[in-house]
């Protein structure tokens, strides 16, 4: 019988936008906290524009973004537009009702509005506040704007990511955003443990660049101990050989494998019915397999090409060999292991079930952390929060709506048709360019969503 979630009874005021900050607050939400997300109608969270359900951009498309769902499922939404001085005043009135404040602006923004930590602490001394920013609250780069796409290279990770002899490359997502968002959630939990013991709140300055630097631990230490910077080695390992990504049957299907020792090498050769490879002296030990990696890659590919990538994974794992299929996003959605583990919660939202990847990859025996609710519509909880918590009257709400401090529709600087063209994705062009592999109109049936 699952118990209460551990942060039940705590309330978060979430001023964060886009990816890193909202990941931090969504984890707190999944752990039971009530998270109130704040957006301005002149400045809605930009990810309300990405991956609109069914690519239909009429009506209130900004309430139908799958990207927004992933980062904000289970939260409440209020609008407070900071262009108006009443907005920061309302934030200050909300602070006594909350335990935690999360924000992800560059450092000068909250100070400008008089709601930086020092001001909030005066209102509620035991508040826990976290700022997630690109480069932190101090130092010469503190005011630099930053997206995750720049922070992965800025944290050094791209210096050891890339094909052999090629340029540094990014991961195909905003890699440091989810990572530093998770680090932020842990930092808040540590601060809550301290508050529980001592009654004291505190402020957390998280630089997303710094949070991700330790991912390069091996390369950093090689620089510190030996003065070397990393080379890019594709998918090869500094330790094990062979290791790589090999083509399988099918247009663009691949298998990764790592052979960690001589016993695994022999097991691999037996599994692929090439015992003569195990007899080849060039490949007899790790240094030999490193030295002849190119030849090994050709031999291994000659075998993998004949197999389906998932079939090859099962065949090799059955022989104790570390191998995994490179799944494409559709295959990830259908993978039996991920399904059984609850990797996706199936969330009913805006006319259909939406698979929603969980943001905390831990399964607890004593409580559940599955997604509780769809993402909120813009301003959906204005009444509940501003009237319920602050006791604003209907007249005051009407005045705020009149002044565009609150609302449920974004105010765009461009005509709505321009916005709709911006958020509608030209899938056929994507297909021609090759940045998508296929477009399948019957995807909902294939996923069993209808």
């Amino acid at each position, binding site marked *: 019988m699952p118990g209460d979630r551990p942060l039940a009874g705590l309330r978060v005021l979430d001023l964060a936008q886009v990816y890193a900050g909202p990941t931090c607050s969504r984890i707190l939400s999944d752990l039971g906290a009530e998270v109130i997300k704040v957006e301005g109608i002149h400045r809605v969270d930009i990810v309300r524009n990405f991956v609109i359900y069914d690519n239909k951009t009429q009506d209130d498309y900004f309430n139908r973004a799958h990207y927004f769902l*992933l980062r904000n499922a289970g939260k409440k939404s209020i609008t407070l537009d900071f262009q108006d001085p009443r907005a920061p005043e309302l934030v200050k009135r909300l602070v006594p009702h909350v335990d935690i404040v999360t924000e992800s602006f560059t450092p000068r923004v909250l100070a400008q509005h008089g709601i930086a930590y020092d001001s909030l602490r005066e209102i509620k001394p035991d508040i826990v506040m976290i700022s997630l920013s690109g480069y932190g609250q101090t130092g010469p780069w503190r005011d630099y704007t930053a997206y995750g796409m720049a922070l992965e290279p800025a944290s050094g990770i791209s210096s050891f990511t890339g094909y052999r002899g090629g340029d540094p490359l990014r991961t195909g997502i905003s890699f440091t955003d989810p990572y530093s968002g998770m680090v932020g959630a842990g*930092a808040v939990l540590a601060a809550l443990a301290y508050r529980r013991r001592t009654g004291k709140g505190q402020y957390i300055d998280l630089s997303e660049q710094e949070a991700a630097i330790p991912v390069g631990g091996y390369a950093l230490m090689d620089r510190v101990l030996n003065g070397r910077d990393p080379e890019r080695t594709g998918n090869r390992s500094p330790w094990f050989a062979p290791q790589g990504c090999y083509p399988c049957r099918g247009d663009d299907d691949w298998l990764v494998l790592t052979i960690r020792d001589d016993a695994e090498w022999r097991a691999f050769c037996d599994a692929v019915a090439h015992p003569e490879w195990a007899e080849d002296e060039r490949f007899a030990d790790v240094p030999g397999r490193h030295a002849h990696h190119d030849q090994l890659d050709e031999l291994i590919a000659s075998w993998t090409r004949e197999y389906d990538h998932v079939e090859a994974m099962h065949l090799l794992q059955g022989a104790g060999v570390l191998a995994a299929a490179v799944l494409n996003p559709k295959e990830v959605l259908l993978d039996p292991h991920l399904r059984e583990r609850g990797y996706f919660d199936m969330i009913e939202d805006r006319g259909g079930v939406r698979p929603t990847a969980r943001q905390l990859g831990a399964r*607890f025996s004593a409580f559940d952390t599955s997604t509780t609710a769809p993402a909120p519509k813009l301003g959906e909880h204005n009444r509940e929060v501003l009237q319920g918590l602050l006791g604003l009257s209907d007249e005051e709400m009407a005045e705020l709506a009149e002044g565009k401090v609150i609302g449920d529709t974004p105010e765009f600087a461009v005509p709505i048709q321009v916005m709709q063209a911006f958020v509608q994705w030209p899938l056929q062009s994507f297909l021609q360019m090759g940045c998508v592999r296929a477009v399948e109109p019957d995807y909902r049936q294939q996923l069993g969503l209808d």
Partner: protein
Amino acid sequence: MAEAALDGLRVVDLSQGIAGPYAGKLLAGCGADVIKVEPPQGDYARRLGPFPGDEPHHDKGGLFVHLNGGKKSVTLDIETESGRAVLRKLLAGADALIESHPPGHLSSLGLGYDDLKAGLPGLVYCSVTPFGQTGPYADFQGNSLACLALSGLMYVTGDPDKEPLATGGEAADYFGGVTAWIAVLAALEHRAKTNDGQHVDVAVLDSLGTADEYNTAMYASLGAIRKRFHSRHHFPAYPSEIYPCRDGHIVVVFGANGFPLPMAILLEQIELENNPMFQNHWIRFIQWQQFEEILRPYLLEHDWRDILTRAQELRMPFGRVMTPSTLLDDEHLSEREFFVEVEQPDVGEVRIAGPVFKMSETPLRQGPAPTLGEHTHDILLDLGYDADDTRILRERGVT
């Protein structure tokens, strides 16, 4: 010493490699007393280097030092009954256990969660493995590469005409480590309310769910199977990638308002403001090769600092492509005192990555990593063993 967030907390870290040990390192940074329990031959990460002068030594491995700073080390062969008896005593005084054995192995030794919970009802028992304790792949062999492959992240990373590319540095394991750290802290909050411990099952693969930015969303909402395309980002955000510049590389990210005007100003061709590729992001995305004929020559004629400074003045979030050398030498990180020096036994003064966030009241702690078994003797004495016992345990290879 300043107070720490987790003062008074004791963690037994029975894990090896990267993911579990990084969780333990973060707990130690927050002030927990983390006792690393290693087999007598040591955590296998001690053998992974990099070693000073490339000479292997179990106390000098850089990756091990990076992942185990601030912990204590006890050697213990838990495959023996005497070793298990010591571990049980250690756990009796611990709040949390982190372990990374293949699923079922500790149960086979009588050390599974179900074996321990009756005697230790408050224990938080956190297992960290590549694929978790349940599901069809639970018994598969795994590592960071396999998790990146199965999560779909690898399929969208790299060039379209080449093989999918893994993010370097065993990156997935760090996701798993951070997840396990969060999980232990969350379970301790639960315990503070209920007095109950529990078992937490952390899979490195599951921990990548948070990195599913829009890959599965593109299929689940549009029916489009995304494929790697020069590691390009979600499509309206083009360009958001690394390009060569005169003295190295630069990340070009235009941000919310970079087109049309700020980018035209940066490129010193103000008339580009009216170019369709600057006016319409879909035209730019589809005609990207033409766009890059404009962008690349400018970058190749300028140094990273010049480009970065000007772009940031125009409020475009360009970034620098850092290497370990430039990180260690960086003026910004230096002013924030990110890297810290520790006196590492047998190695000397080394600079290590420091606090990954700054807490105003309870700053994170950093320390050297323990030598193999450095604290075995003292901790055995603490547990009530006498000097003869510790000698016998050592002679019999238990410690």
